[in-house]
């Protein structure tokens, strides 16, 4: 049955990430409205991917919002790759916004170690309010893991994610939720629920091959499109995130 978000060919409308390699892997981009988990260990490029996704969106006229949990925006922007295509006017015009979640916690009076059900609902409603107020089409939460640490009950984690995903998707907002993994790519305590709920899962990692450490990316799941499930090697450059296929050559142990 044709749906309002499908074109005449039955394909879902795409949110072109602007990261050529990822758009290629996804046959044209992320299906619009999908909530995608970007999961990986430290230093594997999750934040760079997310910021590039937002910058390209803003350049294309889509309002973009980055919700930072782990580090203050000022520090984040100081350390982020200076993309050649970044334009200061994007932030000045409000096309690209950075918000520190801890400030929101303070404003809402929920700056504490553990959230209740009502506080989770309040948080999701506040995020939804921001998305509405600024007509946000691309959204990043960096990271979902940090929020989950305040949700002691797994049921609350599930509830938070489901509410967030439903609200963002209903607004046609394409979202990336950053999820931290251990240094060997294992899920951290309290992790795991996200993968099941998200529409898509992109895993970034470190692959050690004969003493070399390669940054890798793999799309494990993406609802609404066929996609490559192969592993790619990525590079973080001022020209953006670049990807090439991981060479197998019979030399990669354990099929890693």
């Amino acid at each position: 049955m044709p749906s309002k978000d499908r074109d005449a060919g039955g394909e879902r409308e795409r949110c072109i990430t602007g990261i050529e390699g990822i758009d290629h892997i996804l046959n044209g981009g992320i299906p619009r409205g999908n909530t995608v988990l970007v999961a990986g260990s430290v230093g594997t490029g999750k934040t760079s991917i997310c910021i590039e996704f937002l910058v390209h969106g803003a350049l294309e006229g889509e309002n973009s919002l980055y919700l930072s949990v782990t580090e203050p925006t000022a520090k984040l922007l100081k350390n982020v790759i200076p993309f050649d295509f970044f334009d200061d006017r994007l932030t000045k015009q409000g096309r690209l916004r950075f918000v520190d979640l801890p400030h929101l916690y303070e404003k809402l009076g929920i700056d504490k170690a553990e959230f209740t059900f009502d506080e989770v609902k309040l948080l999701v409603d506040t995020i939804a309010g921001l998305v509405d107020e600024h007509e946000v089409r691309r959204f990043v939460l960096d990271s979902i893991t940090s929020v989950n640490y305040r949700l002691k009950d797994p049921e609350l984690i599930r509830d938070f994610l489901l509410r967030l995903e439903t609200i963002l998707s209903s607004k046609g907002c394409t979202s990336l939720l950053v999820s931290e993994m251990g240094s060997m790519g294992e899920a951290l305590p309290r992790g795991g629920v996200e993968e099941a709920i998200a529409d898509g899962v992109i895993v970034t990692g470190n692959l050690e091959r004969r003493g070399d450490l390669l940054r890798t990316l793999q799309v494990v799941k993406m609802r609404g499109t066929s996609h490559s499930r192969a592993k790619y090697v990525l590079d973080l450059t001022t020209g953006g995130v670049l990807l090439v296929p991981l060479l197998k050559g019979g030399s990669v142990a354990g099929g890693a």
Partner: protein
Amino acid sequence: MTVATEISEKLLALPEASAVSLRLRTEQYFDAVQGMLDLFASKKDLDVIYITTTIPAQSIINALEVLEISMDRIWFVDCISQIMMSSAKRHPHVIAVESPTMLENIMLKVEYLMRKNPSRKDLVVLDSINSLAIHNNTKILSEFLHILVNNLRARGAYTVIFSMQEYESDDIRNMLVLVSDETTEIEE
């Protein structure tokens, strides 16, 4: 005809986006570099991306200075300086790859440089297949060449792969036949 001129003439006779294996003797090396970078690339108005896995980029740059070849349109992907723990000052036209075993990173750096200067066509020089073969097994090296050359061909770039005749093995010869449109030797 000098080695440099001969190489340039041979390359000029090839169709665009050709992949060429250049079989050289050691004593022809710098003449070959001159023929490609000075004569051929200039005549065809090409940017040059020079992947060096044999000697540090700075050594080649020093030779280019002696030969009075401008560096304006030449960029290096240096796969050897880092592994030598060289403390030499980095030239602005040189990008380092940690090790010649990081073949994917070589492709990524080439991609980066091609995007950085998208307006002109490129000549990508791989110097050399023999030194890459020291660090990588035949399977992964064949896979690397296959992907690199096809990608460059699709983007209209020339590829020249150096092979030093003194160090060629059957494996290397077979690999070059597989990925190249043409194998060229210098007579002199």
